[in-house]
């Protein structure tokens, strides 16, 4: 009885050690000829570009993906951090990495030439990779094209009472939009707008951008806010195809300016141990091939001028982005976030 217990325990331990050994071996693969990425973007969205890079250069891309905490990890790991690059969505989070002091400036002829100044940090601490527009999805059945809101401001109009769905107000995409409203109209007007929008909501903010379109399909609301690329992604998904079919995209303006856009981007880390490979990857991702892939596979807008947009993107309508500088949005993010809490947007 006792012997068998010990035998079992010993067998368990042995299995454990073997397993741990196998895991450790896998990790040992982090070294030269490679580039290490910390990513806030879901890996399946960027993996195709990384695979293309590896085919092209023979350099392997190692990834850690998490939704939060990677900047903290970089900060704590300090000069010994194995990470070379950090990938984020949302300008606010790119700016976080910069302000945390974990990024390094990079400047190469190609990067400077291909990426417009609006989409990169002055000293090259971060570079935009793609643009994404925050647009309105309107029900084909219940909202005529003439009635559809032409501006974000119109969303606060009482005629939409009980007809709008959005995700949580303090999600980064909503916060960035609110920050843009503050930049254009001042905090007071932005607050009134946010209160108006909240009072028009059909339901408590919940779910992601796709879930709002689903709610339109199900008759819970008539219009929603969402990033443009979800339209294409939903059309590609068997289950979600019907959701996307029930709406049409509208590119609203802020005031009389353009549509609010945000970026996804990348930054080199201060500690980057594989600098050359990291620069190679940065240049690859801002090259025509990768930019086109972003557009065709993820339905995001290229940041590099002249790269053709995917057919679907063109069919959705013309994007005229708001010209407000991105770092203004990043700077106003904290104010926007507090505003969202103040009006109790999520309650």
């Amino acid at each position, binding site marked *: *009885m*006792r012997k068998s217990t010990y035998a079992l325990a010993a067998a*368990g*331990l042995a*299995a*454990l050690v073997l*397993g*741990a050994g*196998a*895991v*450790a071996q*896998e*990790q040992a693969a*982090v070294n030269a000829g490679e580039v290490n990425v910390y990513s806030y973007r*879901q*890996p399946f969205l960027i993996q195709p570009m990384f695979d293309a890079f590896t085919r092209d250069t023979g350099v392997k891309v*190692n*990834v*850690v*993906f*998490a*939704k*939060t*905490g990677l*900047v*903290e*990890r970089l900060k*704590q*790991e*300090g*000069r*010994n951090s*194995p990470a070379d690059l950090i990938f984020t969505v949302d300008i*606010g989070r790119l*700016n*976080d990495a910069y302000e*945390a002091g974990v990024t390094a400036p990079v400047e190469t002829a190609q990067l400077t030439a291909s990426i417009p100044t609006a989409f990169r940090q002055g000293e090259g601490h971060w570079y935009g990779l793609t643009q994404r527009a925050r647009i309105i999805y309107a029900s084909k059945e219940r909202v005529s094209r003439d009635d559809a809101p032409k501006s974000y401001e119109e969303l606060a109009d009482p005629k939409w009472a009980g007809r709008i769905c959005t995700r*949580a107000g*303090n*999600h*980064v995409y909503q916060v960035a939009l609110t920050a843009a409203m503050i930049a254009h109209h001042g905090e007071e007007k932005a607050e009134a707008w946010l209160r108006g929008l909240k009072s028009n909501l059909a*339901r*408590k903010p*919940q*779910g*992601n951008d*796709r*879930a709002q379109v*689903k709610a339109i399909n*199900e*008759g*819970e609301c008539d219009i929603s806010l969402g990033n443009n690329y979800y339209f294409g992604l939903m059309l590609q*998904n068997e*289950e979600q195809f019907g959701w996307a079919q029930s709406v049409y995209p509208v590119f609203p303006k802020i005031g009389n300016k353009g549509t609010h856009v945000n970026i996804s981007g990348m930054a080199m880390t201060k500690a980057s141990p594989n600098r050359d490979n990291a620069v190679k990857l940065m240049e690859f991702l801002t090259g025509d091939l990768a930019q086109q892939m972003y557009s065709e596979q993820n339905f995001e807008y290229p940041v590099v001028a002249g790269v053709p947009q995917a057919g679907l993107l063109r069919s959705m309508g013309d994007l005229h982005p708001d010209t407000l500088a991105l770092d203004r949005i990043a700077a106003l*993010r904290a104010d926007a*976030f*507090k505003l969202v*809490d*103040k009006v109790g947007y999520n*309650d």
Partner: protein
Amino acid sequence: MSVTTLSSLSSSTRPSQGRVWILGGLLVALIVAAPLGAIAWLALFPTENIWPHLASTVLPRHSWNTLVLMVGNGIGVFLIGTASAWLVSTCEFPGRRLFEWAMLLPLAVPAYIVAFVYTDIMEFAGPVQGLLRDLFGWQTSRDYWFPEIRSMGGAIFVMSFVLYPYVYLLTRAAFHEQSSSVLEVSRTLGRGPWQTFLTVALPLARPAIVVGIALAMMETLADFGTVDYFAVNTLTVAVFNVWLGMGNAGGAAQIALVMLGFVVLLITLERIGRHGRQYHHTSSRYQTSPRVRLRGGRKIAALLVCAIPIVIGFVIPAGVLLRHAIVFFDESWNQAFFAFARNSLTLSAAAALVAVSIAVFLAYGRRLSGRGFGALSRIALLGYAVPGAVLAVGVLIPFARLDNAIDAIARDLFGVSTGLILSGTIFALVFAYVVRFLAVGFGAVEASLGKIRPSMDMAARSLGAGPGRTLWRIHLPLVRGSLIAAGTIVFVDSMKELPATLILRPFNFDTLATHVYQFASDELLEQSALSALTIVIAGILPVIILSRALRQARPGTRTGTRTRTLDIGTRKDVLDNG
């Protein structure tokens, strides 16, 4: 019924040995508590202090929601857990033996997956509302009223049916350890079965029930997946909002500290509730009495009380996952899948082993030393209620500091860089799991150790055995069932752990949970259903082992009776025979 600490004993017999245990226990407690210290440090020195903003807007609302959810779940798990444990332990009805272990099955299903499945079923496009619309000819959601699953009520519903096994598991073990003679005395003195249950069995099992409820409530407190999905704005949601939306980790840590306040409150309440009421049986005779055979309506009622939680908490979610897993089988069944499974199993097994060892160490140190040590060992348990992502940062800080210090010394002395030795390795992951789930193991071990009469220790010690030997020869064999139970819960919880795994993991490293999450976070759970199902299946196996162990460890069957009634001198022979 007596309350005795062994502190007097440890100081009178072999002081040095007892002190070694206590010092060792303190050291372990300190190491485990280090991440919590790091979180406190983050909270006190944030890059931008948004505390005034939090205190005036977010905290009151989110705290209230958290409280409602915790109390709601507490009531839910208490009702389901104790009722089913009592029926299974003392009554005889069809399927009882099956229910005995099947009641534990919902433990194997991550709450966020259950939430996802029920949203699918209950929402507008789901089968339930679809059927209703067909029946009554309604068109849109404006034509009729239907309870919103994505709500506080929905969250309490889903989480109660997933978390009740904590209460069931510990309460059933407690009922099993109650000698039927105690219950029979109650019956012969004229109490009916209900009265016996309410006035004798429940009070005797109270420590176990309280621990179970406390665990379920802490799990509720730390949950992010379910409340996020159901748009219930609890404190964990606030943590992520501040962190993601403002990039303010300090603010997130501040909210996490508020959550720790909740836990301290919970633990204090538990202590007060238990104070002076630590029951030990004075009878050393254990025997099983025949279970009460239920008939007619009662039989059916008992059947339903046990079957409904299993159907809701396990059968339906697992069924839905199975359907998706079959549809997407070819895409999912590949080399990568096995790597995920191996990573999950290895990490979880290591975490279970380490956590149980530490739990024994702490619980025994507490038994030896009494109160002062107790307070410190509690701090080591607070990790359970910290949201995984915040805890991950708490783990990052001490590890990175240590690694960088070693590296700096190596550079100074030898001119070589050692790089990061522990950070970003599976070692950090296992450590995080242990800190996070130690409380689960500790609760079970301590509750069980507490039931061993101090006279046992005294007998062993007066016969010349030191504390270590007493632990090894007397306590561990007696609480074996609970150790297995503790290890199992840690294992299953580690399999499900997500946020800390995401942040701390090495490059290109996925567990089943992170793989599931990648898709589920985009409402594409179907594509990772096979991995989700594997988490569930991996959870079932220990559940079965656990249940067998519990049955065997029951006093009154096999070795149990004899062990307990024997004196120390002859124990060995019995074990060898058994």
